[in-house]
């Protein structure tokens, strides 16, 4: 069951179509599928809807697809770092559906787990709750949120074995597992591909059943906000 492909373009071959719905992992610029995003840009696929916590920055991450106007709609929790996004949104060129961050993550995970709807307290009494079904449980009010079933998942992991078992690194895990779970097909880019048996079976973050195609590549891994402290005197 070898799921390894030679390049991002090969791994995406046959999966892209105009108007499709893509779920992408990553938080800010951390753990984003940068190679697959570049390949989607190169493919020129249009009218894309993205479920992604953020929209990248102007020249990195999903931002590069905003520049080429390939994105029709974003489902995100925070888009504050992207000036081009703001311009397109305020001018009405781009649709935007804000989801609370936890609701977005759970909607992805739910879809991947065959759960089409769940109730949450998040957003009750706010704009987010408008038009959504309200229901009381144990005297408290909750709203119904639905699973986000995507056509394609694109995610970034640290390591994969050839059967698709994934391991992530530190906070680069973030949205990647739930995003991977919610697509009909899941394509993963990793820094290193290893043979089956090289990953400890107790330490796999996402089992290969959720992964269909894998590529290995060089990652820029840009840092959004470098913050450091001074080394104290010895």
């Amino acid at each position, binding site marked *: 069951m070898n799921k390894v492909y030679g390049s991002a373009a090969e791994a995406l071959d046959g999966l892209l179509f105009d108007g499709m719905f893509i779920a992408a992992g990553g938080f800010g610029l951390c753990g984003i599928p940068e190679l697959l995003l570049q390949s989607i840009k190169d493919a020129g696929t249009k009218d894309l809807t993205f479920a992604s916590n953020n929209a990248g920055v102007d020249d990195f991450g999903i931002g590069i697809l905003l520049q080429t106007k390939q994105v029709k709609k974003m489902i995100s929790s925070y888009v504050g770092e992207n000036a081009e996004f703001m311009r397109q949104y305020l001018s009405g060129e781009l649709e935007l559906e804000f989801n609370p*961050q936890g609701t977005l993550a759970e909607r992805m995970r739910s879809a991947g787990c065959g759960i089409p709807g769940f109730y949450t307290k998040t957003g009750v009494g706010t704009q987010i709750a408008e038009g959504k079904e309200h229901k009381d449980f144990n005297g408290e009010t909750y709203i119904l949120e639905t699973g986000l079933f995507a056509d394609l998942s694109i995610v970034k992991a640290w390591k994969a074995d050839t059967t698709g078992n994934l391991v992530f690194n*530190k906070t680069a895990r973030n949205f990647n597992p739930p995003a991977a779970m919610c697509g009909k097909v899941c394509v993963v880019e990793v820094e290193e591909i290893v043979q089956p048996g090289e990953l400890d079976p107790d330490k796999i973050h996402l089992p290969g059943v959720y992964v269909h195609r894998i590529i290995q590549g060089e990652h820029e*891994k840009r840092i959004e906000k470098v913050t450091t402290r001074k080394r104290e005197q010895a």
Partner: protein
Amino acid sequence: MPWDREQMAARAAQELQDGTYVNLGIGIPTLVSNYIPEGVEVTLQSENGMLGMGPFPYDGEEDPDLINAGKQTITELPHTSYFDSAMSFGMIRGGKIAMAILGAMEVAENGDLANWMIPKKLVKGMGGAMDLVAGVQRVVVVMDHTNKAGESKLLKECTLPLTGKGVVDRIITNLGVLDVVEGGLRIVECAVGVSEEELRAATAGTIVE
């Protein structure tokens, strides 16, 4: 003399309970970690998938795979654990995080909170704030008492889109500390050198005894 940012953070740090898990928002709340009282052990959650957030790294030791919810480079601690966003908000929504300390644009006397958007002006998104205020056990807001125009940010009713309804427990401003109680806001303390009258005068929301 009103408290400055550092003094507000130091005052907010007094809210921390030993042995609890806490989420600190962006801005002044982030500074709170510099003032954790001695003998108080708290574990900081970063909602992008980490418990046990450590300080900023030394120059040259930044790791692009290790950031906080404000996208700043950080470090790990011995008891750190990492997890995905679904799990992260599972513990937030599930009430396992004892407290969130957050910034705000407006707080109403009934505990309503607005801190995520100004229609047609500032459309950045709520990030994890709506989940936090809905899920954590106690919400403490740290903010300036008034906006740049000198208008009170503690209102009878919020004018901006809400982040959460009736969710704020305590507000720490540059002028003092107030609790949301039955009927309105109750003054807990005034900043050193700020009189109760000044605090009342700067507050548009109802103050109750």
